[in-house]
């Protein structure tokens, strides 16, 4: 019966994960549909013969959003649950402990912007001031809105002015900092020119949301589902083994 409870608990968790997976799938579908529509609108409104596609990709592109994978120990997640199930037979607890000891590390995916992780490590105030200004992907929604308002050119002018001041301060120091800074024009929108159409910027916003929030979570949920599947199979095997042992014992008792 305890084995069955354990399996039921795992299956319940699996159903929650499945629900989250399908919800994330719906969200991804919505975001991607919007993204495709916006790219189509941008292509439709573009000059004759111009298409926002692979012909414009930068052959030296560097990823401004990267993956960070960490493995979390499942023991931490279910420590409360384990404490609540102290009445379980020692056999189950032992097998579970043994199982955790082996390989219960569920990968967790997150998407980070390298500039974000580098910012706290910035050694001087100058670089920490300049990195956020020169890294458009940090606030794509705000940027898209600002560009729609026509204020981006003003911002760019301000940034350039601030940079000119910095240049005047100390050329040698700046030369050293340049190597640590993210590239000035690492925004993929720049591949398509300086004045990109609003639908393309909207497509970028939707794509960023999908890449930062939905896709890593989908991958994490998928990994967790695999882990639960393995756990359930193991639990079923243990149950079958226990049942076989119990029936063998019953036969022996009856015979004697």
């Amino acid at each position: 019966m305890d084995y069955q409870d354990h399996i039921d608990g795992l299956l319940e968790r699996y159903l929650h994960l499945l629900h989250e997976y399908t919800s994330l799938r719906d969200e991804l579908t919505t975001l991607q549909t919007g993204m495709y529509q916006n790219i189509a609108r941008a292509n439709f409104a573009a000059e004759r013969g111009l298409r926002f596609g692979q012909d414009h990709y930068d052959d030296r592109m560097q990823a401004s959003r990267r993956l960070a994978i960490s493995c979390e120990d499942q023991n931490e997640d279910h420590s409360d649950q384990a404490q609540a199930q102290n009445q379980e037979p020692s056999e189950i607890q032992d097998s579970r402990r043994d199982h955790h000891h082996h390989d219960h590390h569920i990968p967790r995916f997150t998407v980070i912007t390298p500039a974000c992780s580098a910012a706290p490590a910035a050694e001087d105030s100058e670089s920490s001031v300049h990195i956020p200004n020169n890294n458009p992907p940090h606030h794509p929604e705000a940027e898209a809105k600002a560009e729609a308002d026509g204020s981006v050119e003003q911002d760019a002018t301000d940034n350039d002015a601030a940079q000119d001041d910095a240049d005047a301060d100390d050329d040698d120091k700046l030369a050293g900092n340049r190597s640590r800074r993210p590239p000035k024009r690492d925004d993929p929108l720049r591949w398509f020119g300086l004045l990109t159409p609003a639908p393309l910027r909207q497509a970028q916003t939707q794509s960023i949301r999908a890449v930062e929030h939905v896709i890593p979570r989908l991958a994490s949920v998928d990994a967790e589902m695999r882990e639960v599947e393995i756990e359930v199979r193991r639990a079923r095997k243990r149950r079958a083994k226990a049942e076989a042992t119990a029936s063998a014992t019953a036969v022996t008792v009856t015979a004697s």
Partner: protein
Amino acid sequence: MAASQGDYKDRQFLAVIGDEDSVTGLLLAGIGHVTNPPDSQKNFLVVDNKTETSAIEAAFDSFTTERKDIGIVLINQHIAEKIRHRIDTYTAAFPTILEIPSKEHPYDPEKDSVLRRADMF
């Protein structure tokens, strides 16, 4: 799914195999990366009607087996159908394969490898 730290710590890129709009949209988010010369390996493949299945398989093998810096492979579902046998037999923990919809082929849950696995389970 046992994964040592060495398996995943250097996996920092997402790879894409998709049609032009899918790849363009995802690259707009800043996930595109070309390694330094002389290799200059891209982490994406644009697939069109002329792309042969062998090229898709080669890219899939490159992203999943040869390269150790890819953590998630995104592939359009209709393209995944072309190499379904490869995807269904892929069991490694890293990189993770995620099928995504494309402009002309909406997401079909019945073809999704995760949901099919859940169905069998």
